[in-house]
């Protein structure tokens, strides 16, 4: 039950949180107010930003955090408001601290198996988790959730994740932790670099070479797997595109036919694993190296086709070229193709902002890809080289279609995928995770992060949403069952207490929220629900659904929950807010 004073307190909280309002002594637009003060050290940055940055509302700052990071929390949103969107993004792009570091090393593949499997051989037979550390993605999953929930380089990590959804490999068939680690660090290292470098890193990776069968691919009759998916999934797509992402000519005009795929397959022959592997069963083919995932693939001239090959974009591989020369020409042909800008633009927009961008939005981002530059609010991004990913990501995140709440279209937004749902809920509630339970939850919700079912990832860009004319990739793994399982994750995290940290283990964080900051609002259910709504999605719930949420929260009191009642109120509010469609579908 709310009193008049608590109602005005709630209104005050709203006003303080929103820079534009000037009541309750909270200060006017862009001014020094409680919001800035809440963000440690933000005041100084705010002072210099205020002269340049456009005023950014709490709703828009929250939206930017949803789009650009693993989830907003109160401190981050205040920081974005203080700096302005462009300056904040620029500063974020300078932070690149996260890497994958956990799990066993490459000794599992140096092992010569003379006395049995690696984990059965001393000293590894004494390690109870040898299998997990050397053969599974579990250590990397732990790094991922730890970094996503606690590390500051949020945009860098999101950029790497965007690439991970394009340049897909899977732990389902790559059974080496160190190999997966090397591969995903390769994406992490290039995530804010240049798309051409990503293409090269992936093409030279022995992990990708194994996954899509280009390692030891031989000129006599090469398989077509990597060649096809490099064109179809990693760079151009099968149909010719305009800069705005629409099909050239209005229907699918093929970019390549199967003969062209074969030209690429021949051009990409000639590579084997780097040296260092010790399992002779994996290098029976004369000239090949044994399975090994440290370093790049190396050349085997006898495997490499030396005929002239005609590629796309008017590029030819001259007769007698070496494998590295052919690779650079392959990359030239891809980077020169008109499809590359809109292909990358569309996928980046779908990952960060919306499943159904306007043609104009795609054009703007594709242009940033081609020019390698983007500028907003006087803040420059990119170095002018085609394919610069800072320019692309800035174009995606700072575009009016992403930023302006005035862009009101019923077709915007996207369904938050399970990984972002997990991290967003944790971060909003000041929580953290060491990822040790997240494999099971990922599997339940059909998105166990390093284990997509195929190179086509968990879902396709084009998945049709029944009842609409739109696409919604994340709907490709969403159904009645998973709808309820999202609530079961919230139940686990909130009412079951998540997973506790193991006290003896300094690396253990558990999977836990921290409700401390929100307890102070728990006495007033209206205020608590509004506060959590603002954290989660930047505005309060619509009136009709807001009241039942308040009623469910306000049920808890000292009589029915003893001294747990404030916690119960926070859990209930968090469950309903983070389980609401207002959160689940990012707008």
């Amino acid at each position: 039950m709310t009193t008049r004073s608590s109602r005005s307190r709630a209104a005050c909280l709203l006003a303080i949180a929103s820079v534009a309002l000037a009541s309750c002594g909270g200060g006017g637009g862009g001014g020094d107010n409680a919001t800035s003060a809440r963000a440690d050290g933000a005041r100084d940055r705010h002072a210099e930003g205020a002269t340049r940055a456009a005023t950014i509302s709490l709703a828009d700052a929250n939206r930017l955090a949803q789009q650009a990071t693993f989830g907003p929390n109160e401190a981050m949103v205040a920081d974005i408001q203080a700096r302005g969107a462009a300056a904040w993004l620029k500063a974020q792009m300078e932070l690149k601290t996260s890497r994958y570091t956990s799990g066993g090393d490459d000794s599992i593949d140096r092992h010569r198996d003379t006395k049995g499997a690696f984990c059965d051989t001393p000293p590894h037979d004494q390690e109870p988790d040898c299998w997990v550390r050397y053969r599974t993605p579990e250590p990397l999953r732990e790094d991922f959730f730890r970094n996503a929930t606690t590390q500051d380089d949020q945009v860098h990590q999101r950029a790497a994740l965007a690439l991970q959804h394009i340049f897909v490999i899977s732990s389902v068939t790559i059974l080496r932790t160190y190999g997966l680690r090397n591969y995903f660090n390769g994406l992490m290292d290039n995530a804010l670099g240049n798309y051409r470098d990503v293409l090269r890193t992936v093409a030279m990776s022995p992990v990708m070479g194994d996954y899509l069968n280009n390692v030891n691919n031989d000129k006599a009759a090469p398989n077509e797997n990597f060649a096809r998916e490099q064109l179809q999934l990693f760079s151009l797509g099968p149909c010719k595109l305009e800069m705005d992402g629409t099909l050239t000519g209005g229907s699918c005009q093929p970019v390549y036919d199967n003969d062209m795929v074969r030209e690429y397959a021949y051009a990409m022959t000639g590579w084997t694993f780097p040296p260092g592997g010790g399992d002779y069963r994996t290098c029976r083919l004369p000239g090949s190296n044994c399975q090994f995932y440290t370093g790049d693939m190396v050349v085997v001239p006898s495997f490499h086709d030396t005929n002239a090959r005609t590629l796309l974009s008017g590029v030819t591989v001259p007769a007698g070229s070496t494998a590295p020369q052919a690779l650079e020409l392959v990359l030239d042909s891809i980077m020169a193709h008109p499809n590359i800008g809109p292909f990358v633009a569309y996928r980046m927009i779908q990952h960060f902002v919306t499943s159904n961008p306007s043609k104009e939005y795609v054009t703007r981002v594709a242009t940033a890809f081609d020019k390698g530059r983007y500028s907003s609010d006087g803040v420059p991004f990119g170095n002018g080289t085609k394919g610069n990913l800072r320019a692309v990501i800035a174009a995606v995140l700072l575009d009016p279609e992403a930023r302006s709440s005035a862009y009101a279209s019923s077709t915007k937004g996207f369904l938050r995928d399970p990984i972002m749902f997990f991290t967003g809920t944790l971060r909003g509630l000041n929580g953290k995770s060491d990822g040790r339970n997240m494999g099971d939850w990922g599997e339940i919700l059909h998105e166990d992060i390093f284990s997509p079912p195929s190179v086509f990832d968990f879902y396709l860009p084009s998945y049709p949403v029944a009842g609409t004319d739109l696409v919604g990739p994340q709907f490709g793994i969403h159904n009645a069952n998973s709808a309820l399982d999202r609530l079961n994750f919230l139940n686990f995290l909130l009412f079951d207490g998540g997973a506790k940290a193991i006290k003896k283990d300094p690396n253990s964080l558990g999977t836990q929220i921290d409700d401390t900051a929100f307890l102070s609002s728990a006495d007033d259910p209206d205020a608590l629900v509004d506060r959590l709504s603002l954290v989660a999605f930047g505005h309060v719930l619509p009136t009709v659904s807001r009241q039942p949420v308040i009623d469910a929260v306000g049920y808890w009191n000292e009589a029915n929950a003893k001294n747990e009642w404030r916690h119960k109120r926070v859990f209930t509010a968090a469950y309903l807010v983070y389980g609401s469609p207002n959160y689940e579908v990012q707008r």
Partner: protein
Amino acid sequence: MTNKHHDHPGLDDASRRAWLRRCGVLMASGMGLGALAPLAGAKDAGYKALVCIELAGGNDGLNTITPMDESRYAQYANVRGPLALPKDALLPLNSDYGLHPSLSALVTYWQQQKLATLFNVGPLHEPLTQQEYLSLPAGSPQVPGNLFSHSDQLVLWESSTSDPMARSGWGGRASEILGTANPVISLGGNSTFGVESLRTPLVLPFAGALFGATGLMAKDMDKRANALRRAAMDALHAQPQGLALADAYTAIHRDAFVVAERLGALVASVPGDALSSPAIDDAFSPLFDKSGLPGTPTAAQLYQIAKMINGRQIVLGNRQIFYARQGGYDTHSNQVDDEDVTQGTHAGLLRELGDALAAFQRAMENLGMSDEVTAFTQADFGRTFASNTSRGTDHAWGNCHFILGGAVHGGASYGTYPQLVLGGQDDCSDDASTSQGRWIPTTPVDKYAQALLHWFGLSGDQIAAVLPNLANFPAGRLKFI
């Protein structure tokens, strides 16, 4: 593409089930069992089920059903080279064809005339000769779009169209036109096959899993805190969102609560528990793992489907389409073992498929439902006739498939087996020196679907509405069922 296995190092099946139990799964014990006991005895007049099993990645049909007559076997072995199955390893269906040895569980159904094969079937817009294919301009609407691409070909098969941008599947459209109680029930994901204009496929988890929201189910409503939370959740999802994707999301959610109440106990039932069916459990028991659950993903999917068929009074409806998916068939390399061609990746996949299909058919017979249930396979595409130097095969087009059930006119083959000649009349290339052998289908997916839907009970007009390209082909229905 690769297969997703459900092994989880560090969390074996027993621990996983213990964990699921802790999370409030396995609620069967809390329900009124009498009301939900499976039917015994009388069949429901008019019930029929279609079960689609998709072999994702593109099954190599040539090593699945292989010619055994002397001249064609020689053609096959000559081109297949190191991938050719030895003739004496094949399981003869008749003097003309043999099955891959891993499909031993299916031979008896051929002999009982419940298993049929359909040759060289695939997506077409209209009948297409080799010369037409080679002379039509790239992107011509007369040729299906984006051939040889997994994702696009799956859409073509699942939608029975020539348009890779199709937004619905023929399973979905058939369900919609009949007004079935449920959309396609899927154990294998949200594939386009089951998508309709308004409904999404009903994707169910494996036996033993929770299908419901802890704390918000009917049995939880006696606690006021839960009732208030459920009321709030309902209010949140009743609210118009003003955003198409959000409204689609809330529609799925509202439906989820209703369906979960109806199906939760049946979904959660595991072999041997109070809700289980001995008829089904006996049929699948050879495939159980040490935790007492079906031990392969394909068996697990077909087990659940069998339960839903047996539980049709709970599932509702007298027409139901089901969908299952087995992944891993994209055998570009290491399709066969280098020491024994009858072993290896493909052999393992076919073993899983054949054993699961046989268990499913046994279950249907045990239930007395064999005449009412028809299973059929499909795949993205077949694979190249010639192998590559990675000991595998690449993406092709026309393929062969199975149909299984009591209503099938089995022990016979339908369609036309392709001519096993590189650059020959069935090849989409006329250049023997460069071709890998990819067959232009001589039977379209539309004809495959037409026969199944006719049996399923759709009228001619309904079939024409569901299969828009059917009119492009000569009249006449395949007679495998």
